[in-house]
């Protein structure tokens, strides 16, 4: 009985990892992708020859490693000066983290930029959670509120969040607050929509059962609507968290002095592609780690439903 969820888990962990890591790497050519998937399929078909966990990690690592190797050879073969080799990026990453190599404005400055970006990402994300979840629960459960707000939401939703950039700069000026606002907007929609969907897909009998047992009003929201909608809410949180990191880069490219987005923008201006790629990789890792944390909380809160484990 317990072996099946464990297997599901590691499979999900594997796909989850493959989902996130390529974002931090340069785009793959299609040939590499297909050979790699053949390799993966071959390995998966055999009987496990290593502990399952180790095997999962190896499988998850194989693809990015192959990409890095491919990247290296493409740079060497074409002799391009526009794209650095993985090794050069590695050196840059070391200097950005600990200093002592280039000794310029970026040496050893990772914490300043990472913390600035994290503050904005989690600030905007938290704001979107605090507003988005209660709003989604009410829109999902209360018909009048749904009739009142749903059309407006549907109208605003197709507007790309980046299109708000000019307005947000007028509202909040050039600076971090504008970036937080963009992150908030980007995280808000997936959270609201998935919360609504989460409530709407609850078996209505659960609400009937709760009301016949004497539960109503705000207690109904806390004790029944919220937990019942949790699978939908966590879907929304994972999506929203991804959008939050996308939008922080856009937000920080508008003249904010700190943050990983500004580092990438500076790298572009200075034609330092190694710096750009370093920024990309760090965002990828930070996003990946936060996603793991969200999945961990998800698995704890939704421990009653193995089907919803990430």
């Amino acid at each position, binding site marked *: 009985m317990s072996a099946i969820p464990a297997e599901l888990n590691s499979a999900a962990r594997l796909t989850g990892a493959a989902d996130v890591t390529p974002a931090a790497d340069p785009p793959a050519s299609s040939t590499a992708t297909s050979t790699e998937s053949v390799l993966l399929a071959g390995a998966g078909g055999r009987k496990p020859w290593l502990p399952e966990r180790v095997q999962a990690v190896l499988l998850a690592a194989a693809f990015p490693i192959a990409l890095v190797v491919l990247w290296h050879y493409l740079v060497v073969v074409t002799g391009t000066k526009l794209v650095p080799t993985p090794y050069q990026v590695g050196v840059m990453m070391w200097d950005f983290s600990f200093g002592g190599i280039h000794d310029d404005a970026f040496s050893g400055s990772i914490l300043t930029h990472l913390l600035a970006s994290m503050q904005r990402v989690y600030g905007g994300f938290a704001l979107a959670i605090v507003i988005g979840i209660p709003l989604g629960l009410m829109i999902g459960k209360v018909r009048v509120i749904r009739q009142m707000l749903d059309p407006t939401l549907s109208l605003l939703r197709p507007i790309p969040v980046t299109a708000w950039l000019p307005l947000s700069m007028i509202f909040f000026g050039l600076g971090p607050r504008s970036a937080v606002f963009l992150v908030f907007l980007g995280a808000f929609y997936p959270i609201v929509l998935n919360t609504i969907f989460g409530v709407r897909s609850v078996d209505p*009998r659960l609400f*009937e*059962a*709760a009301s*016949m047992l004497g*539960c109503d009003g705000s207690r109904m929201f806390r004790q029944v609507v919220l937990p019942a909608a949790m699978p939908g809410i966590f879907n929304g949180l994972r999506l929203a968290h991804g959008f939050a990191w996308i939008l922080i880069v856009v937000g920080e490219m508008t003249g904010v002095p700190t943050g990983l987005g500004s580092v990438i923008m500076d790298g572009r201006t200075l034609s330092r592609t190694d710096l750009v790629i370093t920024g990309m990789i760090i965002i990828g890792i930070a996003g990946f780690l936060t996603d793991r944390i969200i999945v961990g909380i998800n698995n704890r809160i*939704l421990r*009653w439903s193995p089907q919803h484990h990430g």
Partner: protein
Amino acid sequence: MVNDDKARRRFLEIQEVTKTFQIGADQVQALRAVNLNIDKGEFVCLIGASGCGKSTLLRIIAGFEKPSSGRISLYENAITGPGSDRGMVFQDYALFPWMTVRENISFGPRQKGLARKYIDEITAEYLNMVGLEKFADRYPLQLSGGMKQRVAIARVLANECELLLMDEPFGALDALTRESLQQELLEIWARTRVTVIFVTHSVEEAVLLSDRVVVMTAGPGRIEADVPIALARPREVSAIDFNQVRRDITQRLTSHVRHGSVRDLKAVA
């Protein structure tokens, strides 16, 4: 005081209840002029062809649906919505999947804001009554159908409901599990003297369990017959008198099904 008062009042009264559903431009009449009185402590089975409005009637009694016309009252107070004096046991259980067995059972008592110690006592008592102490900390998804239905029964009983509404509660269970749950339900009923309205498609189940079998017919739904079951308890399915009663009720069921089809044919012609 209150109990004395309740003792003098009539328990469940359903008078001229109709129900019409609006589906777009169409109207579906699910119930037409249903009259039914049920005394406290009775075990009543509702039986009838599919679509004759049994679930609708039960949901109106539970307060989940409002009747289109007619009156329905409990202790002579009109029923206007769901309340903790009536508990529904659904065919598909409707347990809260994120709560353990224990938390599901204690849900009703917790809503009343009772003292923690008292809640724990009630929960333990009903866990014991349905024999699920060992599974108290399991989640519903980890239980078999029969166990889930036991939890659902304990959940409404722990809420001290006076009227247990059961909509084909054992319909999805295998024959063995169904038999043992029928026996357990009878024991619980004998012990708590809760009033039960039990919807079933099985004449045998109805005759085995109930004091009265109420036969409903479709097109639109109404009560065709109200048959008291005088057989002594405990009842034996293979006994001769049991089979006589069963045959009698089956006949009543099929006779109006035949009438119904004649009526349908006329309507077509």
